[in-house]
């Protein structure tokens, strides 16, 4: 972690407050058993932030183990195909384990060790966070259990096998729709029983305080590197930056440094892509920001897909990483403040974008990241043919072969 992540008084953008609120969103709404543990975690995290040894250990791991910095790659054939002046891809797909998730798991597992916890648990949707946590646990000699919905286990069998290879226990969650939200609930319940020896490694900018801020801070390296790379490559102008949003960690990690250090008048348009699934006019989507209303789920207050009685609804997306009925509280705040724009992308648009990047650049993106790529033609229409856009390619698509094959992406 770099010096720049330390809180400073002159920040333009300084959310959350001490209680973990981003405007009205966020906070801590969990059973009392967990409350003291969250306070301990918050204190340990703050202390770690001021310890140069912690920052150095993480820096070395990110460089030598993950392979950072990830490249900012100029994708000319994609730009031409989408009608844009230039497109740059932030290649988080090239990280060890194939996604941005490991930036966060390294940070949290170092913190777990620092707090004397020998066991970590995690939830996973697409399996990327589960694999990253299992990998980090293997690296650091921690016991690891990953909670995963039975539907996601079906959709992402390769990642399930990987986690087991890495020595993690994969705990199937059959409740509800057997997807990400159910896995989070199961992990939270388990944590309430085992708080004393277990650290819960949350994979996105969701959950009770301090998780949304902590996960964002660990992911902020994405945006920090991007700012530095824009300078190094002497890119004169960036018009827009896009990232996909399920819980929203890769988007938060990309956007936060731009919100913090780039003055509003010079800041590119920031756009988050959430899952429109089969369409926003159906009930099969995961577009909490576009179609939801504020509520409490999994310990925090944020936009949420919910019914008339306040029950969370089942979200749907072709992408296991985006079918979550809530969204990180900071995104709700950024939406209300107009600091980030959020658009919804259907399964079909994402599959088309997946195919396009694969055929124009020889890069197979995760189906999650394909939602961000799908915004390129829309941005071309809005910003014109000279526009320069950066896309955060949050992960690679190896895990999605079966899904795109089922979706009809054939080889002629």
């Amino acid at each position, binding site marked *: 972690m770099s010096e720049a992540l330390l809180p400073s008084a002159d920040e333009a953008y300084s959310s959350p407050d001490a*209680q973990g*609120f981003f405007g009205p969103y966020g*906070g*801590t*709404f*969990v*059973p*009392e*058993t*967990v*409350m*003291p*543990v969250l*306070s301990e975690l918050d204190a340990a995290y703050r202390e770690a932030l001021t310890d140069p040894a912690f920052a150095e250990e993480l820096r070395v791991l990110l460089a030598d183990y993950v392979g950072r910095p990830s490249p900012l790659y100029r994708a000319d054939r994609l730009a031409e195909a989408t009608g844009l002046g230039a497109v740059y891809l932030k290649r988080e797909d090239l990280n060890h384990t194939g996604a941005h998730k490991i930036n966060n798991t390294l940070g949290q597992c170092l913190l777990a060790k620092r707090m004397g916890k020998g066991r970590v648990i995690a939830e996973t949707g697409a399996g990327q966070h589960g694999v990253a946590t299992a990998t980090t646990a293997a690296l650091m000699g921690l016991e690891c259990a990953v909670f995963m919905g039975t539907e996601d286990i079906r959709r992402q069998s390769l990642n399930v096998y990987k986690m087991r290879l890495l020595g993690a226990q994969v705990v199937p969650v059959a*409740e*509800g729709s057997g997807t990400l*939200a159910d896995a989070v*609930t199961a992990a*939270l*319940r388990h944590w*309430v*029983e*085992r*708080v*004393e020896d277990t650290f819960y490694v949350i994979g996105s900018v969701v959950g009770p305080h301090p998780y949304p801020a902590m996960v964002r801070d660990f992911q902020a390296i994405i945006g920090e590197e991007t700012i530095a790379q824009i300078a190094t490559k002497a890119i004169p102008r960036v018009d827009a930056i896009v990232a996909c949003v399920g819980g929203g960690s890769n988007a938060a990690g990309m956007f936060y440094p731009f919100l913090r250090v780039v003055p509003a008048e010079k800041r590119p348009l920031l756009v988050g892509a959430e899952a429109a699934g089969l369409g926003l006019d159906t009930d099969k989507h995961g577009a909490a920001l576009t179609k939801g209303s*504020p*509520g*409490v*789920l*999994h*310990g925090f*207050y944020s936009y*949420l897909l*919910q019914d*008339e*009685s*306040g*029950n*969370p609804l089942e979200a749907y997306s072709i992408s296991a990483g985006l079918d979550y009925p809530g969204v990180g509280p900071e995104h709700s705040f950024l939406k209300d403040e107009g600091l980030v724009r959020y658009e919804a992308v259907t399964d079909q648009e994402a599959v088309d974008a997946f195919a396009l990047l694969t055929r124009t650049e020889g890069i197979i993106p995760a189906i999650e990241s394909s939602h961000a790529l799908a915004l390129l033609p829309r941005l071309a229409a809005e910003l014109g043919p000279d526009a320069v856009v950066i896309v955060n390619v949050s992960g690679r698509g190896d895990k999605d072969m079966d899904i795109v094959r089922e979706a009809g992406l054939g080889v002629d």
Partner: protein
Amino acid sequence: MASTDTPRGLARAFVPGRPVLVAYVMAGYPDREGSLAALEALARGGAGVIELGVPYADPVADGPVIAEAGKVALANGFGLAESIALAAEFLAAHADAPPVALMTYLNPMMRLGFERVAALAAGAGVSGFIIPDLPPDSPFADRWLAASESLGLDTVFLAAPTSTPQRLAALGARSRGFVYVVSSLGVTGERAEVAADLAALVARVREHTQLPIAVGFGVGTPEQAAAVARIADGVVVGSAIVRRQTDAEALEVFVCELVSAVKSSA
């Protein structure tokens, strides 16, 4: 609707030296009539306080028995508003019923609106609320207490084995009616044994409040209820009752056993 304008407080259920059973049932399970019959069985069986559980799709503090019952109740169209209406019907028909507290998660309350929830509950004659995911030191607790206390509704906050002295002081100071002590880590549900260090936990909580103390999570048999009654003012039984909620007669017999076990311990 109940005849009283001001709901009767939960504290009236507690008399020093005479521990009571705090009995939990799920509203709308196995159906509306079934849960009404269960409420009547609890009253006849001698429960001192009734906890009426509100079904919710993400019951993060509840174990499998209550979670499953909640799922059935949700499928029956039950939510917070329907649960309050059920309480109203029960309390209107039974002037001598024990006080009723609603156990509900936070989001259904936020969805309906704190002011509206408080008005409906007070109008129904409900005495108070237990909200497992509402910490006493949150801004939403401020807003809820502002809306509910003026209508005479009690809010019971929960204490846990992990609670620090500062947290015990805060939740003791904000609780009305009684303090709910969670006996052990984990979710609701029966356990083989009552936590060994429960007496010490109850004693720690008592340092921070004058209110009666009810202990729950993991109490499922008359023997366990008697053991808890020796150290607490109220004994909460949930899952073991909900498991019998489909049969009001068997439920009443079980509640009688629990009540006599609780009383005999005094």
